[in-house]
């Protein structure tokens, strides 16, 4: 190998370092190190190695019970989200452009509305004087207000509301890549609608179902907002135990031990998923287009095939029993039953937050129906320096996170898509790991590290922490954009005499602009809505908006919060609307 070639390859390695280095450094310093520290604390005390924390963890059944409850809530949530989310994603993937945009808007609005706002809305809705109780009373179904809150049911409703949009969007990304000619081909080959669905469409959508399942499950297992706000004492989840250990007793070692347990469960879930379906189905649209041959063994595949045939036969039997379906409707038109179901679900996940709006202008507190009209609650918010400062701080941290995540995430995406760097799969897994590791563990680890270097309570620390959890989304978005980008345009530019930098400035970036803008907004919104890290890293001072919201709502349920919720809801609505407009304008070009 000539010296020139060696120099060239050395130059290439330097460019890899320049592009991927910042992101690698960030993740090592603010993900690997803090989480490692926390895990280390669980087996280490002043006198050296110890398993005392783990002995305590398994000494009584208290903690194991909490783990079981956590698993139960997460599992049921996942099941409900996937089953009800599937028809929604299906409808969105088959309807025309206009209606798709409408449906997607409501899913996205719900997706981007803060977990806190949605959980709070359910508190109000399900309360003793809430809409549901008032409705049931007026219909004469019950004679005195029922206790709808603080039980397993209310937690489940809140969790499903929180995670259904995620399930829909995950499944949608796979369904959109299913060739619509396939079910039609099945029809011409003699498959009735039910059979065509179960034998052709459903197996092809399975990677999406699996990805949605694991995303929802892993998110649910690390959740604390909904169970804390909507659950009773029997619905405590494992993450709340960690919060208690830190906030009440500062017991780092025990918090570390619980974290290990949580992480362990998550890793088992991922390992099982990988065994069954392969993790590659999760990471890229490329995988979805080219499904791997099932790794299920032959007899298992046979059983699956028989099962699908049975399902298809049953569906077709049911369809043929349905009274006088209009036969001459367009075969591609989705059924009315499906449409009704989807709109009902979208109503259920959007309505609570929408009902918050009239209540925030009411004089009579949060009781339904709202009485009178007043701007008092909004005046209270704006007159309170605590709220206004929290808002400003959230905006600042959000913009900072958006910029930082975009600045270090975009080059990394370039590196993963364009370069021939070895071990791409491993790099991608590393970059996406902040999504996999439960947020609570990252938050507690960061708190520990920040406390040692004096970053607690600073905006900079918060930006760093938020960037860690936002950057995977930026990388994924930019990778998708880059994969669709026609590199021949760059070649054309350079053949026309543009130097590399000029090519970037005049050709690449203008075309990628919309993608970069949307990944910025994604990172901004992630930070703007982030509570877990803020819960600790703000150190009780300098609260962000979600932190302030959390402090208030755990203290008392007041109409002031309804006013803040309304503001947040409208702000997010406008943001999505703008992002969508930007995206469409870019697409139309």
């Amino acid at each position: 190998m000539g010296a020139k070639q060696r120099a060239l390859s050395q130059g290439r390695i330097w460019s890899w370092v320049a592009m991927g280095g910042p992101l690698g450094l960030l993740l090592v310093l603010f993900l690997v190190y803090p989480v490692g520290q926390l895990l280390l604390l669980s087996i280490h005390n002043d006198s050296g190695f110890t398993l005392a924390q783990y002995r305590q963890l398994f000494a009584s059944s208290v903690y194991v019970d909490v783990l079981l409850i956590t698993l139960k809530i997460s599992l049921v949530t996942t099941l409900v989200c996937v089953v009800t989310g599937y028809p929604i994603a299906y409808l969105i993937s088959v309807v025309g452009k206009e209606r798709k945009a409408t449906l997607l808007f409501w899913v996205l609005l719900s997706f981007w509305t803060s977990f806190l706002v949605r959980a709070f809305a359910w508190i109000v809705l399900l309360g003793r004087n809430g809409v549901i109780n008032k409705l049931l009373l007026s219909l004469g179904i019950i004679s005195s207000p029922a206790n709808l809150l603080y039980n397993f049911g209310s937690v489940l409703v809140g969790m499903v509301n929180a995670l259904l949009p995620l399930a829909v969007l995950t499944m949608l990304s796979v369904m959109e890549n299913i060739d619509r000619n396939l079910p039609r081909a099945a029809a011409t080959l003699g498959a009735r609608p039910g059979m065509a669905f179960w034998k052709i469409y459903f197996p092809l959508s399975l990677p999406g179902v699996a990805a949605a399942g694991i995303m929802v499950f892993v998110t649910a297992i690390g959740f604390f907002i909904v169970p804390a706000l909507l659950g009773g004492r029997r619905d405590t989840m494992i993450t709340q135990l960690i919060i208690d250990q830190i906030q009440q007793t500062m017991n780092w070692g025990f918090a570390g031990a619980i974290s290990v347990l949580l992480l362990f469960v998550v890793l088992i879930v991922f390992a099982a998923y990988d065994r069954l379906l392969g993790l590659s189905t999760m990471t890229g649209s490329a995988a979805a287009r080219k499904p791997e041959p099932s790794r299920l063994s032959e007899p298992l595949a046979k059983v699956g095939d028989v099962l699908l045939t049975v399902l298809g036969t049953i569906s077709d039997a049911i369809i043929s029993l349905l009274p006088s379906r209009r036969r001459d409707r367009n075969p591609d038109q989705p059924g009315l039953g499906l449409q009704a179901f989807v709109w009902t679900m979208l109503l259920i996940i959007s309505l609570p937050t929408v009902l918050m709006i009239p209540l925030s202008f009411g004089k009579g507190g949060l009781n339904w129906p709202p009485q009178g009209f007043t701007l008092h609650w909004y005046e209270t918010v704006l007159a309170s320096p605590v709220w206004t400062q929290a808002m400003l701080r959230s905006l600042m941290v959000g913009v900072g996170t958006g910029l930082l995540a975009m600045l270090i995430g975009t080059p990394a995406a370039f590196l993963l898509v364009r370069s021939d760097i070895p071990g791409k799969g491993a790099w991608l897994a590393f970059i996406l790991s902040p999504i996999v590791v439960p947020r609570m563990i990252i938050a507690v680890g960061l708190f520990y590290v920040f406390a040692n270097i004096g970053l607690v309570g600073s905006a900079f620390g918060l930006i760093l922490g938020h960037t860690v959890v936002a950057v995977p989304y930026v990388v994924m978005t930019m990778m998708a954009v880059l994969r669709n980008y026609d590199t021949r345009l760059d070649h054309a530019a350079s053949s026309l005499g543009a130097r590399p930098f000029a090519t970037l400035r005049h050709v690449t970036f203008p075309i990628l602009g919309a993608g970069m803008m949307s990944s910025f907004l994604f990172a901004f919104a992630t930070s703007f809505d982030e509570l877990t890290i803020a819960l600790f890293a703000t150190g009780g001072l300098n609260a962000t908006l979600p932190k302030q919201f959390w402090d208030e709502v755990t203290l008392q349920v007041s109409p002031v919060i309804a006013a803040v919720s309304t503001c947040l809801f409208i702000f997010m609505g406008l943001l999505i609307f703008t992002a969508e407009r930007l995206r469409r304008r870019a697409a139309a070009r």
Partner: protein
Amino acid sequence: MVSSSLRILGLSKRYGDFVALAPTSLDVAKGEFLTLLGPSGSGKTTLLSLIAGLAHPDEGQILVDDADVTHSPAYARDIGVVFQNYALFPHMTVEDNIAFPLKMRKVSEAEARRRTMEALETVRLPHVAKRFPRELSGGQQQRIALARCIVYRPAIILMDEPLGALDKKLRDQMQLEIKRIHRELRTTIIYVTHDQEEAMTMSDRICLMNAGAIEQLGTPEDLYFRPRSVFVADFLGESNLLSATVRDVDAHGLDIALAAQAAPSRAVGNGAQFAAGEPIKVMVRPQNLQVATAGAGGLTGRLVDVMISGSLTRLYIAPEVAGLPQLVAAYPTRSGSAPHEIGQLVSLAWNPADAVAIRDDGGR
């Protein structure tokens, strides 16, 4: 093999304000190979979808062997479709793909396996049975799509631009293959393409469509030699179209006057009725336009360009007379054939039997 006739009566389809198919009637005989030809947006794919049952007509009827199937769902029609992008099921092996229609018809497993292998033999790919579609080349996928369609012996097979994604050589080969299978199975085939050469090569009859309606229906010879409209003349093969006026009509042809040239000339009709004084277009195919050195009489023009494209040499000539478009003449390429000098004057002539009169419809 079973084969059915197809009758279409007043079939139409709109999407909003857009007329995808104006009321259209068409008869296809048992075992016929009919091609729907036309530019994109001409309604040929719409017509195909309606026949397959993948879209529903606004009006009209579809009869298969005189039985009304207009309101039957696609799965009950017994019409096979070969899709443009093949639509092979990516999660099934080749074998399972081909056996799928048999399974839907509850054919026994042993019988299904036998017929699957038979279909694979027919398309000459018996060794790929266990592979997945993505492991095959485009041409192989095309054959599998064909095998999946013929395996259940549908009475009518519809093909939607099945060779569109293949390169020229493979396309020529597959054309022969499809013709062979058609001969062997004697199935009725309705074939959609926008490639006029493909249509000419393969079809018993061509149905040329334009703007959602049938422009002309007939044998390839009919369409090529007796185009009914300027559009047909233009779409099928190359043509020179000259404006002219009818002077007289007799039993053998027409006396005409070419525009901007007093000299009278003769042309044959395309089957339509002409009246004296009517403005017409006269079509002369390039291979029928004879080019000689200037002075031989007839039309004179200046040679603009010479192009050799393989077996044919094309001469582009700008007539000296105002009001006539640039003309093209073609003759077989021979080595050492006299070089034509660009810019030189030439005279043009043609046999009156090769000049076809077409009603001047403005060339919609």
